């Protein structure tokens, strides 16, 4: 399904993107992601396709806002039955939907007596009761506890796949985008990149997108050599080999992006060591079971060391450290900082 929407107030957005199965639109808070969903749902004035020009109640969409907006005066099953026409089968239909999201036992409860995950599933069942052609989810992970989040997300994605309705979820959470079938990145009111998460996370199109996707290291440099087998990028005091990318030629100013988790201590990738850099440890910080190492020298880099690689090493501020990055993990963008 192709979505094309434009709105001017309260934020300026010009969105054109594909929605396939479970699609995540990744963007910073305040970018207008919620407004896009409201525009598609017909709740704020906007021009667009599909459903443009239809009144909100005539658009075949299901909308799950943040916090899910269950009706507090209705029981779980009555919430699900809300969009169903009055008739004999109304309760049975609602109960069937609740059973499909695994909540048949809680049908008589009011929303106040349900957990965050349970509310989300009631809201999902309610949205699906109308047989929508598109499901809109606003920050589906925001109201969930970290402890149960992954489980609930897996369940949610499985359920929406089961129902076979395409989903557009907006989020600022890269973790959710990783689980998607398709994703797009929203920056300054436009889609700057879209595609399968694997491709987007590996090759962000711009620095803004790279930041949003979790890249922390950006180095300004120049292309030194290009060949079919790869390229060499260099800056003041550093040289890095990378895979070949089309459209690059020697002398071009570029920005190199490297993920913190793609940097490894010098002995890990083996000999002959590609892309080895000698740097000085500036600071160390524990992040859960991993260790974040801040280094300076010819360039400043941030490395996230998994605990398996911390074993047997003594790292301290001031120590000299050889670090490496695989050429395929050095991402080059034609954009200067």
């Amino acid at each position, binding site marked *: 399904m192709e979505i094309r929407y434009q709105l001017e107030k309260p934020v300026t957005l010009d969105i054109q993107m594909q929605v396939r199965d479970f699609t995540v639109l990744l963007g910073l808070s305040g970018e207008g992601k919620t407004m896009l969903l*409201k525009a598609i*749902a*017909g*709740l704020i004035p906007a021009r667009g396709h599909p459903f443009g020009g239809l*009144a*909100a*109640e*005539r*658009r075949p*969409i*299901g*909308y799950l*806002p943040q916090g899910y*907006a269950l*009706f*507090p*005066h209705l029981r779980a099953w009555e919430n699900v039955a*809300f*969009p169903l026409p009055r008739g004999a089968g109304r309760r049975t239909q609602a109960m069937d939907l609740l059973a499909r999201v695994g909540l048949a036992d809680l049908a008589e409860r*009011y*929303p*106040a007596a349900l957990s965050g995950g349970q509310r989300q599933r009631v809201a999902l069942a*309610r*949205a699906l*009761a*109308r047989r929508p052609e598109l499901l809109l989810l606003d920050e589906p992970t925001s109201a969930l506890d970290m402890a149960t989040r992954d489980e609930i997300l897996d369940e949610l994605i499985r359920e929406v796949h089961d129902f076979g309705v395409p989903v557009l979820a907006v989020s600022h959470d890269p973790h959710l985008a990783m689980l998607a079938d398709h994703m797009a990145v929203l920056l300054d009111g436009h889609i700057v990149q879209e595609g399968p998460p694997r491709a987007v996370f590996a090759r962000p199109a711009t620095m803004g997108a790279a930041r949003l996707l979790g890249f922390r290291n950006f180095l300004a440099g120049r292309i030194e050599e290009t060949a079919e087998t790869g390229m060499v990028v260099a800056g003041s005091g550093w040289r890095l080999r990378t895979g070949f990318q089309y459209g690059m030629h020697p002398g071009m100013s570029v920005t190199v992006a490297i993920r913190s988790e793609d940097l490894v201590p010098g002995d890990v990738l083996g000999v002959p060591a590609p892309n080895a850099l000698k740097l000085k440890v500036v600071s160390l910080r524990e992040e859960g079971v991993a260790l974040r190492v801040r280094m300076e020298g010819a360039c400043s880099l941030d490395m996230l060391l998994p605990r398996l690689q911390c074993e047997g090493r003594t790292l301290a501020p001031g120590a000299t450290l050889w670090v490496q990055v695989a050429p395929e993990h050095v991402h080059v963008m034609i954009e200067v900082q």
Partner: protein
Amino acid sequence: MSHGAAVGIGAGRQPSARWIATATAATVLTFLLAPFAALVFATDWHDFHFAPGDLAAIRVSLFYSALALALVVLAGTPLAWWLAHYHYRGKWVVDALLLLPLLTPPLAMGILLSSFYGPYSPVGGLLSQAGLYLTNTAPAFVLAQIYGAMPYYVLAARAAFEGVPEELEQISRTLGRNRWQTFWRVTLPLARLGLTAGVALAWVRAMGEFGIVLIVAYFPQGIPVKLWVNLEDMGLSAVYPLLWVFFLVAVPLPLWLGLRSRRQGMF
């Protein structure tokens, strides 16, 4: 050791604070309710009888107050909904204008009404040509009650509507319900507590309206004006029976509505 001492002091202080709060509350409550107790003692229970015309006044008050209340709710609800839902520049002017009838003393309001709807005014003249006289008639009586009660109802209903999260109304639309259905199925049930309070308040205002009614519709006499007439003509002891009836008919509806909505307040 010091920890134990701190707990001891805290525990010692709390009951005295609670005692002061309870005593204050009891004093204020007694002050508020004392006149009602006085009524019990002042009434001559051995010679409890109505003055001539009291029963007619009760009928007038009950019937026309119910009519006025129905009109207040019918006209005031859409206004309150509109005030709660539409935001535009200069809305504060509308808000201030809305407070005007509420803040105007009843007697002044009565004078305004008689100058506007009276037989010598252009509006009154037009209406009387159509056969509607708005001085000392049943329609005038209802009109006076509406002016007395409507501002209170609109304020309460507006607050009730503003308390309904807009998101729930929007979600209802995305679930295929139009504005009208959304109003009945989402807005109204969620605003119920506040609306009930508004209805109760309007009922008491309409029943007890004296100042406006006195000027605009001395006849037909309802309970408040009849109480005043009895007091003037026959003295204090002659008003107690009608006063008792006044309490009995004015208070139960709001009391019942209030208790009912409180019980159902928890979802």
